[in-house]
């Protein structure tokens, strides 16, 4: 791992809370590391797990998922569905050999610009410690492994 590894993190934000928290962090000039790139969704419930896998497969080192606090969802309860998917996603990632810590779920209300900035900073450092994921280099465009699978050794009977 190179000394100055700068992780790239894709963040998914809810239009009603965390995206506005990001706006608030901006208006309040709260600083956070530039490693995160945010995508706006209408709700954390819109988060299709394939978005996360796509981001990791396209070269992201980590993914941040954000939504309204439990009980505060703009669409009543969809953030709970995001939570369920997140937990499943972590298991799937572990099964794929990816550290589940690369994907993080954070609740941030529209008033929590500072909190969102802090969580971003924490995740950046956590992912930095894990090192680059380099998934795209393992997997070719058609989904097959680019690392040759060693042929099975002959085992004497």
């Amino acid at each position, binding site marked *: 791992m190179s000394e100055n590894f700068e992780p*790239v993190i*894709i963040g998914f934000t809810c239009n*009603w*809370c965390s*995206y*506005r928290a*990001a*706006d608030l*962090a*901006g*208006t309040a*000039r*709260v*600083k*956070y*590391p*530039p490693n995160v*790139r*945010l*995508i*706006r*969704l*209408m*709700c954390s*419930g*819109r*988060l*299709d*797990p*394939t*978005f996360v*896998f*796509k*981001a990791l*497969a*396209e*070269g*992201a080192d980590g993914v941040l998922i954000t939504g309204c606090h439990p*009980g*505060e969802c*703009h*669409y*009543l*309860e*969809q953030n709970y*569905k995001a939570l369920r*998917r997140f937990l499943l996603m972590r298991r799937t990632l572990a099964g794929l050999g990816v550290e589940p810590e690369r994907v993080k779920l954070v609740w941030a*209300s*529209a*008033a*929590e610009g500072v909190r969102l*900035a802090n969580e971003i900073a924490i995740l950046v450092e956590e992912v930095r410690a894990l090192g680059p994921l380099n998934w*795209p280099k393992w997997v070719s465009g058609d*989904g097959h492994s680019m690392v040759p699978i060693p042929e099975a050794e002959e085992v004497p009977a």
Partner: protein
Amino acid sequence: MTTNPSEESTGKERIGVYVCHCGTNIAGIVDVEDVAVWAGKELKDRGVVVARDYKFMCSSLGQELIEKDIQEEGLTRVVVAACSPHLHENTFRTACGRGGLNPYLCELVSIREQVSWVHTDRKAATEKSKAMLSGGVERVIFNEPLEPLHVPIHPATLVVGGGIAGIQAALEIADGGFPVYMVEREPSIGGHMSQFDKTFPTLDCAACILTPRMVSVGGHPNITLLTYSEVVKVEGYVGNFTVTIRKKARCVNQELCTGCGICQEKCPKKVIDDIYEAGLGYRKAVYTPFPQAVPKYPVIDKPNCTYFQKGTCKACQKFCPTNAIDFEQEDEYITVQVGNIILATGYDLFDPRRVTQYGYGRLANVFTSLEFERLTNAAGPTNGNIVLRDGVTTPQTVGIIHCVGSRDRNFNNYCSVICCMQSLKFAHLVHERTGATVYNFYIDMRTAYKEYDEFYQRVLEEGTLFVRGKVAEVTDAARKPGEEGKLIVQVEDTLAGKQRRIPVDMVVLSAAMQPRSDAKEVAHLFGISCSASGWYIEKHPKLDPVATMTEGVFIAGCDQGPKDIPTSVAQGAAAAARVLGRIQQGEIALEPVRATVDQEKCSGCRICNNLCPFNAILFHEDRMVTEVNPALCQGCGTCVAACPAGAISGTVFSNEQIFAQIEGLLRVNFEHERVAELA
């Protein structure tokens, strides 16, 4: 990952990219010219045909730039890298519309809120801006031309809270000729203002200016007044909310009751009035909170009524001349249709027991500001006599402590706005009515707004003593002669630079305004959000102070933050003006963010069926396919994400758009890395 947007779309679209300087807001950190040049060169193969940077894209000249390019360059997509879409998305969409392009083919990339304002490294900020712009360009290729949804606005309005802000809002709308439902939790409207005697700085009698308004509300042909009622359920969306309201059983038949008050006279049960009299006075078990209550009908307080507790008494029923008492009455649930909602739910007073060193609740002659209001009120428990807790002794010295529970890191960081003026009013009233010596213990005097500082000067001239310093303690432990039997205020006088012990007979705590204890639940009920302190969040702190992020729900008065009566009234009127404008328009255009099911692809697995909290998903048993009802769909996209067959698609946030955005966001990074690898 079956979708591969990069191959499908190369070169099909003609994309215009516009990078805004926003003065120095963006250009100060991001090399905007470099970003624009980069986009013109590196994103050419993605379809970018025009890439410009401009000082202020949102200015009319900036917008004209886009319009001209659409017409002259034949642009089919537009990406603007500027501020948050919550600020100017509409501006640029409208500009595209004027240029002849469907507004939804425009995409905004927030390089101000998400880049220049939050990052300090110029190189990293410029790189991130490029990545975000690339994401926007990839995404916009998959934007579809859409039409906004037009929703009719129901002409009725719900006003929640019958304090002065709610009253003002309701009267404005009702006078404008449209129906209003006003819901108030207490038996009467009037709110906190009805508890006050005088209002600063003019010392108008609160009741004299408030009660005519209350009467207007009560008798207005366009206002349906629902007191002793609470909203329990809100369904629907802007233009067409269905609101369920619980009318608590009054046990008094409003058709028959004349409000004569005989029941209250005859009721044998006295109860301490915690709400209206702030615990200083009594009411009966059947009561109206105060004589000028609107409506005039009393309520029976079931937990305190002898009949409900022991099964005998019925004195009120026996003496009622019109047989209006109805012990059998039950809670009633009513449903109303409204187009807009105004929340004016007010505030709670900070509980000064939490500041233990000030002794409230422990030392008899420490009063809260609300208790003191009742003491000074001519209709209050002491008929307006300022006396100690024993009910007879007039105090010789009074200490008024400012900022109790506000401007204090242990409790609330905010300034409670009204306490300085309220404390000055108290000082004046004590002077006027008792001639006692008054000390005001303040941190800073905050007397902004019209006539306020003049009032401060007046109180200074009246001889009130001002001590600048935060009070450390109020105690009854005498140390010196002259302190026995007194309350001693221990304070650092920061102007004199010394510690002082000031013996007084009475202490008044100017307690902070706090969000209602159930503000969060109410916010959730109406789908709006609270700030970290618990106040409701307005859409924009300066330019949109009474709207909320939720279309059709407005806020007014102290539920948005501490404020005085004039500001609450102004907000009530402002919210009403917003609602009236909506009603006059007759309809509102909404974002066409909706889910649709491709019935060819739907396998009828029904996984999505249980995900929708708005019951927008229907299942056709006969054809074994699912359908989304666009009128009920709110556009959250949870079903889109859940469909294993990919049969559900969501407009504005489609899978294709998001996949493309992810690719775009990460492309820049990749090139960077490859270059590094080669080197």
